[in-house]
């Protein structure tokens, strides 16, 4: 196993996630795509941690932070989406143009 395989995997997952974020209409799926992008980053962090043999394991620690952050983010994100859906009976991000101006 070389580092390049992990980089390719991470890049591929990030690209998939980014594609999902930019193209999905459903807000829940956009959130799921964000999770995929975060997972890609985690793969990179852990891979480089091992590759560089960091005795402090900074990469792994960061990965844990990212996981915690992802959990928090998805919690808030889902809550926001739920509220939007309740109010508007739709979770279509194209209709959410309130951030204009």
């Amino acid at each position, binding site marked *: 196993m070389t580092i390049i395989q992990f980089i390719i995997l991470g890049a591929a997952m990030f690209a998939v996630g*980014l594609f999902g*974020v930019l193209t999905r209409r459903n807000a829940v799926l*956009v959130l799921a795509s964000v999770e995929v992008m975060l997972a890609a980053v985690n793969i990179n962090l852990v891979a480089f941690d091992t590759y560089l043999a960091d005795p402090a394991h900074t990469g792994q620690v960061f990965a844990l932070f990212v996981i915690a952050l992802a959990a928090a983010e998805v919690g808030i994100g889902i809550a926001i989406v739920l509220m939007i859906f309740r109010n508007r009976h739709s979770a279509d991000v194209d209709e*959410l*143009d309130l*951030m*204009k101006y």
Partner: protein
Amino acid sequence: MVATALAFAGFVQEHAEEVHAGDGGTLAEYAWLIPLVPMVMAFVILFFGKFSPWKGWAMAAGTLGFVAVYGTALTVENLREGIVTQSAINVGDIGVFSLEWGVIVDGLSILMFFLVGVVGFLVFVYAKGYMKGDARHTWFFASFTLFVGGMLVLVSAPNFIQLILGWELVGVASYLLIGHYWEDLDNVDAANKAFMTNKVADAALFLGAVIMAVSAGSFNFAEIFTAMADGQTTLATLGFWAGLLLFIGAMGKSAQFPLHVWLPDAMAGPTPVSALMHAATMVTAGVYLIARLFPFYQVPEFAGDLNTIIVIIGAITLFFMGLLAIVQDDIKRVLAYSTVSQLGYMMAAMGVGAYTAGLFHLFTHAFFKGLLFLGAGSIIHAVHSNNMSDMGGLRKYMPVTFWTFMIGTAALVGIFPFAGFWSKDEIIASAYFNASDGEAAAWFMVVLSISGAVITAFYMARAVNLTFFGTYLGEGQPHESPAIMTWPMIALAVGAATTGLLNIPGLTQVFTDWVTTRAFPITEHHFEAVNFGLLAIITPAVLIGLGIGWLLYGSQRELHHTVTDDEGHRSVEVERPSYSVPVLTPVLEHGYYIDDLYMNGVVRPIMGPIADAVVWTDDTVIDAVPHLTAALTSEVGGVVVWTDDKAVDGFYHAAVGSVAAVGRFLRQFFPGQVQQYVALSFAGVVAIAALFIIF
């Protein structure tokens, strides 16, 4: 000329008597505090008095208390050891003259510190009751303190500059105090009259001081007297004129005929002001000036003529001004003319060379005249009128005022053993002593001063009878004044009764010792024994004056008519005796027409053209300035408005419009789509990454 100067120098050296006196130690070293503290406190009261207890009164009375205590301490030390010292600091130089601020401490200045402090303190205590509820209470005490401070600057001055500074401060403060009730135009006129009359005299004082200073090369008294002793020729030549001009200055402040006109009108001020002004402050300044410059008035080359003038002016003042007191109805004006008359005694005593006698009368007069004025104030406080035609019978209503007033009257007319008896007798005895030496002017003075004593007795008998005896003619029920006003009167009554005992010829000589410590040596023509021959004339004469006064104005002369009015009510009308002597009474009532003479002869001819010129200048010159300014302002305003509308507003409109346009242009790229924002921010990340890779 040189011979004159040499003779002059010889005279001064010959007559320089040895005075054994110390320098007073620390006590005298810090005497500069005496004038300084009231000067500073006047301004402290002005700015902070409103917030202090009793709205400035406590500070003012405290200041006077300090002066009284310090003056008493100096007096005791002076009587024990003798103090003669002076010190000064140099403030700056003008040409060859140095400006100095200093203090002179000798018997004369200590006497004034003591008088101003003690009498002033009592008057200030009294003023707390008298001025209660006055609209300008704090302002009154600030200017009153300034008045005292100016007097202390004057009497502590070792040079002409400081003396004139104090002299003018007293003038300004007296102007403020006389015009204290300025809502009434008469009071404002009185204040102006006092100020203007004093200014006429002050002009002479300046000239005299400048002549002396220029001849001697210094404003310092000590250096001027040294220059005289060294035989300064210019001074010897101009001496008569310098002395005369300085005496005219003294005539103004000490209200000598014919510059006395301001003093009776100065009664317009509050009564405590009259009391202090007539007792210890202001009017004594002229007598003080002559006493301070006494060595100058003894130089044989010119002093003979000068002293003759002083004696004649003093004698005329003491006699003719006393006569005016007879016809006054306002009780304060009676006392005012009495003061002028007593100042005549002091001045005349100075003229015959009776230095100690003159100062002794100044000292005792401060107590009994202060007391009489406080008594008059107490009466006015109760009756709400200055006129004796509204008084009468007050003996029953105001016992304290009555008894203290009687003591003051006894002291003023010279009843044994009250203060005035000793001091007035000393003056007349000294005058007689000089007269028998062959001075013609002194004879003139002896005759007039004995007649003056009779007149004094007569007008005081009249005033007392009309005020305290007979039937009360005023409105309402008069009441005795509060304790804060009666206690100072009692204290002054003690002084009026006993201060004469300080200098009984042959028995006590406390006062003589007091003023023996002199900064500048002098010789006196002073009589130091009881002249029984004169007493045998004076005392019966005084008693005759009192008797005539009682016969003409006593309550037995009151006529009671029973009147029945239309409705049948019966009431008693009281008619008082009034006498009119053809020619004499109208002349006296018009004050010898001196006021009319000044008004028509001096004031109007000068004031008319000045007023016309001022009106013309105001209409044509001064009004032109505001008119032009207004027109110009209007023009400038138009230009400014145009500039504001077009240029300034235009700039802001343009700036705001361009910002808005940029905003509208950029807004179309941001329609609010979340995914577009994400795409853009990712593109930004890519761009930054690309930059990193490339560079």
